[in-house]
């Protein structure tokens, strides 16, 4: 009797929002490529706001976070920029050397720990690849008619991505390659503290530390920064099945790599109420009693993730062999 609902469930699970396909890979500067990502079925991807990042799971279960730097008015693609870091842990090398159009990547998020607050004017400071989250912020500031300036520092001009996209903004943008001009005096470049003007900074730790010092006299909470800290998962993302133990109903359900926890539960006759099925609405929140969830939602902040006491089974999975849920 549930034929229609079951077939529509199959249809929905076809709308897989935990994978994206690499549609394009483009070299945009020395050691920087952009990836254009689309849903495997070409449909809409989850909505995002400027400052948001996604988790991409690369080959071998490596998960890396990348800021979205495309156009949110284009609902079926994401763009991320990736800097080759030869001394990194291999994620960027994999993207640069092996990833090709057509490849599938695991998707988590989008999440936004770096949201743009409402203001009449903004100061943006980007270092190197830290320009990526700033690009959609600039688009937004333009749209709102806000006053804004960008200080964009880098090693040398040829290593600085998106200069062409920024060139239309005239003297709002200060491009500062160190090889040409030496070190930028940030405090001088920022000017006097201006109440009501948030400062958004993204880039290497050295730049952000300098920025914090330069903003010492600015109002509290004026400075917003995002540091790229490699996510330290206890283990790489699983590519093997895991088991979900249902504490209240005393049952165990195996979850294969290609189905969501929600789908595995439904197939076992355990209905968990859900709505968006993309980790954004929060309807399917489930209490975790034991085990380590692999969070892929857009809802929990870092502290809530670390607490590990709840998860959204429409997209989130398990890092441990076993998850015990309060179901």
């Amino acid at each position: 009797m549930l034929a229609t609902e079951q077939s529509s469930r199959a249809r929905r699970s076809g709308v897989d929002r935990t994978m994206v396909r690499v549609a394009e890979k483009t070299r945009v500067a020395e050691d920087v490529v952009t990836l254009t990502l689309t849903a495997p079925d070409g449909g809409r991807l989850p909505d995002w706001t400027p400052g948001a990042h996604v988790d991409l799971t690369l080959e071998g279960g490596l998960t890396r976070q990348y800021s979205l730097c495309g156009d949110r008015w284009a609902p079926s693609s994401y763009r991320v920029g990736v800097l080759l870091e030869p001394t990194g842990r291999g994620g960027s090398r994999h993207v640069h050397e092996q990833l090709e159009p057509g490849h599938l990547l695991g998707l988590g998020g989008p999440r936004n720990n770096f949201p743009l607050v409402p203001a009449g004017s903004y100061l943006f400071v980007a270092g190197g690849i830290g320009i990526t989250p700033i690009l959609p912020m600039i688009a937004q500031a333009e749209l709102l008619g806000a006053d804004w300036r960008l200080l964009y520092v880098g090693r040398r001009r040829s290593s600085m991505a998106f200069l062409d996209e920024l060139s239309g903004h005239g003297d709002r943008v200060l491009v500062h390659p160190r090889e040409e001009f030496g070190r930028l005096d940030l405090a001088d470049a920022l000017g006097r503290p201006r109440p009501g003007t948030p400062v958004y900074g993204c880039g290497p730790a050295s730049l952000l530390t300098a920025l914090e010092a330069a903003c010492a006299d600015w109002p509290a909470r004026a400075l917003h920064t995002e540091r790229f800290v490699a996510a330290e998962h206890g283990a790489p993302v699983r590519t093997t099945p895991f088991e979900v133990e249902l504490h209240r109903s005393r049952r165990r359900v195996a979850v294969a790599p290609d189905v969501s926890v929600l789908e595995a539960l439904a197939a076992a006759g355990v209905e968990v109420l859900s709505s968006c099925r993309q980790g954004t609405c929060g309807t399917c929140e489930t209490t975790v009693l034991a085990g380590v969830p692999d969070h892929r939602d857009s809802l929990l902040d870092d502290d809530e993730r670390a607490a590990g006491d709840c998860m959204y089974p429409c997209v989130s999975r398990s890092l441990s062999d076993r998850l015990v849920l309060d179901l």
Partner: protein
Amino acid sequence: MTLAPSPALSPPIEDVDPFSHEVLEDPLPMHERLREAGPLVYLSRYDVFAVARYAEVHAALVDWQEFESGAGVGLSNFRTEEPWRPPSLLLEADPPRHDAPRRVLSRVLGPRALRQLHDRWTADADQLVDQVLSAGTEFDAVPTLSEAFPLRVFPDAVGLGPEGREHLLPYGDHAFNAFGPDNDLVAKGAPHVAELSGWVGEQCRRESLSADGFGAAIWAAADRGEITPQQAPFVVRSLLTAGVDTTVHALSAIVHAFATNPDQWSRLVADPALARVAFDEAIRLESPVQTFFRTTTTDVRIGDTVVPAGRKVLMFLAAANRDPRRWTDPDRFDLSRDPSGHVGFGMGLHQCVGQHVARLEAEAVLTALARRVRTIELTGTPRRHHNNTLRAWASVPVRFTVA
């Protein structure tokens, strides 16, 4: 006035008035007719397009790029007509202006923020149900349960003072009428708008709100710069507009659904964990919020028709929630169904930000009822309350038998 669409691309033309008392009394036949007429219909009476099938309603709801809310989500087009009050920063806004207020309110009302209310509301529901049952087992469920519980817990949770709470329901009722045409339902509320709006505006001020409620949490976000101090009162206003009537009507819908489906009540009594599913199944079936409009930002193809930019599109959420293309036996209230994916709370960017609050209230009431009540039956003919947007009961007379 715009001309009717050109014949070559013309969708089926319907002259029904979705906001007439006849339709508001029982909209189901109209829903079926519009759904079966095609993926898109044209409502000649109001010169608007409409979608009534699940797929098209869902598609329009999630596509904020092509279907904007900033021109108003009622019949009135804010680009050409003056809104009756300053537009909502949430419901009647689009990205990018929508982002910050939505982010703040989602966190204030998020599932994790509500965890601390769970125990309190469960106790409140137990207490209310005990109180009601000790006074008698035959009563009108609308004032006695559906209105009583939200009015008991929600204004406290927001942090409102004790005075004037009786304004909440009429204010919400008028706001939801105002999404429709300027008919007698709107005229009925008009003389009270100034007084109601004045009271609501007063409650949204920081000084009027207790230190520990949702309202204070919104003002705290303004202190952190996440929204502006000018935005804060309007975000509070959204809570007061959309947080009470909708839940009241949802609770009435549940009581009515169980009173007319006694086998399903037995299932809930046997397994109170079904309360969450029961609530969403009732929302699917009744769709307390029946309709919202969007406005096309560009030429948009729906079915075989290209809807030109700048046109109002009426989305029948209620019709989508009973579309047989999506739901098996859609008119049945069935706790074994998975109601996930219904559009009773909308979908996408504007999906009801208070849905977790509503679920928590309903879960508390249903769990309390399931603990005490063995059967629910109607003792008279329930009576509808007409609203341009909401599907509501004015009266649901019931008899409970108690364990």
